[in-house]
């Protein structure tokens, strides 16, 4: 679907993107993560045909984006990190305007706009002026706008930035729905945990280079020697600690009042085996999970300790 090879973008002596290569299969939600200034927006602008690459190629559906921008524009829907809206324009007129820019005939627009507004849950705002909408609504409207010509690839640059938690959840739901409709989505964020939940694949970019790529689990496994596991029994704490200490993959067991934590260096199967042993030994396990926050640690390690 999307194939980036040896992409380089230089501004004078500054290299914003440095021999970046990545591949996004069809139907996936690809998370593009990196700290501010890592080169995410530059890469996405090249993908969208808004910037020329100094070197390298971006192929979308087999089309070289840098050589055939017109064909590219039919296939991609782009949502920038910052965008504005026009004054004195109603939501339906806004959508109608962009439908016009893609050459969609007048008679086809009405139903199409209604469908898209329904997807982004803005049907009740269709007669409102665009500049009166909240930030979250504007983001959703911009997403609907990027879908107006039914593109196969969506490039979304930080769509969740500046949104409150509720609006973020709504945005995630919409993206999942779009994935189920067969869209391939490339989405960027400077916060890895935010993307981890919904992305099938993640690429971590730092100083213009791809530092790590793969599924979240793969990256975690590759980059963390130890995973921190949290376990809480309803009772039988002593028995649980004894069983855990016997396991060779369990290290650094820490006992708290009601729960315990340990570093685990092993496979998922081995971890499942430990849980099975605890249950078979009649330890009433209430919680047994990998501790959150590790993603951020991974991210910090990969990106050289820059703040997220």
């Amino acid at each position, binding site marked *: 679907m999307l194939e980036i090879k040896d992409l380089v973008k230089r501004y004078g002596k500054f290299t914003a993107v440095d021999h970046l290569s990545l591949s996004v299969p069809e139907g996936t939600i690809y998370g593009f993560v990196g700290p501010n200034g890592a080169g995410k927006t530059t890469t996405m602008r090249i993908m969208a045909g808004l910037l020329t690459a100094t070197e390298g190629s971006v192929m979308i559906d087999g089309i070289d984006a840098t050589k055939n921008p017109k064909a590219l524009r039919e296939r991609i829907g782009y949502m920038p990190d910052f965008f504005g809206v026009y004054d004195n324009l109603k939501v339906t007129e806004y959508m109608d*305007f962009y439908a016009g*820019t893609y050459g969609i005939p007048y008679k086809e627009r009405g139903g199409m706009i209604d469908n898209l507004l329904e997807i982004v849950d803005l049907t009740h705002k269709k007669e409102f002026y665009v500049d009166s909408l909240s930030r979250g609504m504007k983001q959703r409207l911009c997403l609907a706008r990027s879908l107006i010509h039914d593109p196969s690839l969506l490039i979304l640059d930080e769509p969740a930035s500046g949104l409150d938690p509720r609006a973020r959840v709504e945005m995630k739901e919409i993206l999942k729905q779009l994935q189920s409709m067969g869209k391939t989505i490339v989405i960027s964020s400077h916060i890895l945990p935010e993307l981890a939940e919904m992305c099938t694949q993640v690429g971590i970019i730092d100083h213009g280079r791809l530092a790590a790529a793969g599924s979240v689990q793969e990256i975690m496994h590759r980059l963390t020697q130890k995973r921190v596991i949290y376990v809480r029994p309803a009772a039988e704490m002593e028995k649980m600690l004894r069983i855990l200490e016997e396991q060779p993959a369990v290290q650094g067991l820490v006992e708290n009042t009601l729960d315990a934590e340990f570093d685990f260096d092993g496979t998922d199967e081995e971890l499942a085996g430990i849980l099975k042993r605890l249950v078979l030994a009649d330890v009433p396990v209430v919680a047994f999970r990998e501790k959150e926050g590790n993603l951020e640690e991974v991210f910090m390690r990969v990106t050289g300790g820059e703040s997220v």
Partner: protein
Amino acid sequence: MMNPVLRREAVTSLRGWKNFAVLTFYLGVTALGAGMVIYTGMFDNWDFSFDPQIMMVLYVVLAAVQMALITLTVPALTAGSISGERERQTLDLLLVTKMSSFSIVMGKLLASLAFILLLIVGTLPVLSLVFYFGGIKISAVLLMVGFMLMTALMLGSISVFFSCIFKRTVVSIMLVYIIMGVLCLGTILAAVLPLAVRDYNAVNMINLESEYWRIALTLIPNPGVAFFSLVDAQLGSNIVTRELLSMLNSKNSALNWIVENIWMMNMLFDAAVTALFIALSCRAINPVREHRHGGAERKPKKERKKGKKKEAV
């Protein structure tokens, strides 16, 4: 299908009361002025006879006011067309659509000029009063409107180009007014000053014929000279054309024809400038223009120079 940019601007610009108020005020003042001229012309004479000459004056004054309106307001209206989109952060959204650079530039240019066009078309009935009372043909009125539109397009295309290359609208406005100053005053100075200097150095022999050509050609871009040349051609008046002919006193028929038709030459000049600046604007806003011709992206100036030096070594 109507240009979407033009369509959107048409929907939004007439929303609200501001433009409506400006249109009403302008048409009101124009109609009142015309009414007063006609009233004075009719009732000042003891026998209520009507002097058609007054209508000629009315025509020239109205047309001159429209011309001044165009030259003064077009830069302000168009200089923010593209930079405004950039400031509003809507330009990228427009550039990723299927619209060509040409459609975007034309949409923005025509949308910015649409209001001026509305004012000009709105005053057509008043201008046509001259036709009603006799004295001038309707085709002449339409030609005058066409001339004004061409001037507006020329100034507008220059403004749009500056709007494409400068981030700040104010810079674009300033530059267009400077260019307008050069066209209106600079060309007259360029035509006349060398003559004054040469008069003092009368000992120098000069080729009169080439000097006449220089003066005539220098005055062609001047919108004011062209406007009054058109008025002269339409009314047979003597504002610039005959003055220029007698000043040059050339026997070259081609030169005399150009002097008599400066307005026509000016319209051709305006058309060429408009085409040039529209093409330049399209180039300026196209983000991937280099690759369209299969070439690599241009390196920054410094790097290009370094590259040349290395190649030379």
